[in-house]
């Protein structure tokens, strides 16, 4: 299933600026294939190199989707414009006692950037899902790896796209994982369908706080309560701030929004 319609948030995943660290959250694995393939295709079309670090299944799926989008993946691979690496093998190169080691991480990743540059590609798009491999078994290690990526992006001034198969409208994932992940990225795209997500949160707000003119005012106050350095849709910022103001009400809005989202927004 593909995204229903392009939204302003597609720009974040398709055309990130150098140094940006974008995270896409998704429920449907097909959406991930779609988003990553478009991210890669846009880079290849612009003459940028693309480095993918993903699971074997995803690497194959991305290549298939890219081919369907018109990219000549074997040619791109031969000239060093498209590099796909195995996430598990890369992790094995720098994980020590269950945690990523900074020096080994740099030593494992930067050579691939150097090779791409030597092949003539100054701009390089990165996609990494080592964090998502770690996330279910060692969340703290995944977050540490995000920080190492962040440092590397600052030095290298190249964009990175990450993805997590988590649901921002799930009580625990939304309340615990999303804030930690948001903190470590420059841009957060919270769902498969951004307009549907925004509609679901808005309707949930009306349900919990009443179909009252003050609800609009309160929603704006929640959105502005704590400005986030991470760029994200207002509906996601509202949820994060509401959690900080009152977890019980944050959960209530999230539960109602999840029901609306499932029903189509």
């Amino acid at each position, binding site marked *: 299933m593909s995204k229903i319609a392009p939204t302003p948030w597609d720009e974040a995943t398709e055309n990130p600026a150098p140094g940006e660290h974008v995270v896409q959250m998704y429920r449907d694995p097909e959406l991930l294939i779609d988003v990553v393939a478009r991210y890669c295709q846009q880079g290849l079309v612009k003459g940028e190199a693309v480095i993918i670090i993903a699971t074997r299944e995803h690497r194959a799926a991305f290549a298939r989707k890219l081919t369907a989008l018109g990219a000549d993946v074997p040619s791109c691979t031969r000239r060093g414009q498209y590099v796909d690496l195995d996430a598990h093998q890369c992790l094995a190169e720098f994980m020590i006692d269950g945690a990523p080691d900074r020096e080994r991480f740099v030593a494992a990743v930067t050579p691939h950037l150097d090779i791409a540059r030597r092949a003539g590609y100054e701009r390089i798009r990165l996609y990494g899902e080592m964090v998502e491999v770690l996330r279910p078994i060692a969340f703290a290690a995944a977050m540490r790896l995000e920080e190492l990526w962040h440092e590397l992006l600052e030095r290298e001034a190249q964009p990175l796209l990450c993805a997590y198969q988590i649901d921002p409208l799930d009580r625990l994932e939304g309340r615990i994982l999303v804030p930690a992940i948001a903190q470590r990225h420059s841009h957060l795209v919270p769902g498969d369908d951004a307009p549907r997500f925004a509609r679901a949160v808005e*309707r*949930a707000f*009306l*349900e*919990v*706080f*009443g*179909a*009252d*003119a*003050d*609800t*609009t*005012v*309160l929603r704006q*106050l*929640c959105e*502005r*309560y704590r400005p986030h350095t991470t760029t994200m849709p207002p509906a996601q910022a509202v949820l994060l701030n*509401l959690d900080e*103001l*009152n977890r019980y*009400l944050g959960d*209530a809005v999230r539960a*109602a929004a999840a*029901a*609306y989202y499932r*029903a189509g927004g």
Partner: protein
Amino acid sequence: MLLAGEDLAEALTRERSARLAAEAACRKKEEFIAAFSHELGTPLASAIVAATLIERLSPTDPRAVTARHVLGRQLDQARRLVEDLLDLERVTTGTLELAAERVEVAQLARDSVAAIIVPTHEIRIEASPAWVVGDPHRLRQIIGNLITNAIKHTPAGGHLRLRVFHDDGAVVLRVDDTGRGMPADLVRRVLDALAQGEAPGGQPSRLGLGLSVVRILVELHGGRVEALSEGLGRGSSFIVRLPAAPTL
């Protein structure tokens, strides 16, 4: 005493009808409690968030100032709901009494609206002097409930109009809004205590408690009230007709 076959069948039918009626009443009561809890829960939820914002922001922060207004309005909304519920109880037990006197409704309408602070909506008043015999406190409650109902169901930026005029020996008090409006079936039920409109996620969103109180109070004043709407998205009107006071 033994019952003959036909008597027994009739007794069983009566017993079954009584049981079904009792079950229906019980269900209605449960629905009412659920709807009322939800209706009271929404202003309290808003008040909790507003209070937390006030606590965490600097007192001079404009967001804290806005939150203070929200807190006041939402607590007032909760208070009104409880008051409405108590009034319904007083009507049921026959303990609601009117302290009737000659009242000038146009001025009362202006005073009632002035007491409702709503920066989000424009309320236009067109009122010419009109006298009724009634309880000023209850008449103010009628106007207040009609206005707060209109505000509640009209998105911010919407318009409300309150008119007071004479018509055919009656004093008419009419509130029009540019809000969400009502489907035809809700227009018929909206003045009943259990009326509900759109129910997002299966939750009740429009408990006609305040409007039921309006209907009861208007009837106690010898008048009647009518709801009008051309449908969803087309606004609503509530028209109260009270007997005009005899000329002195």
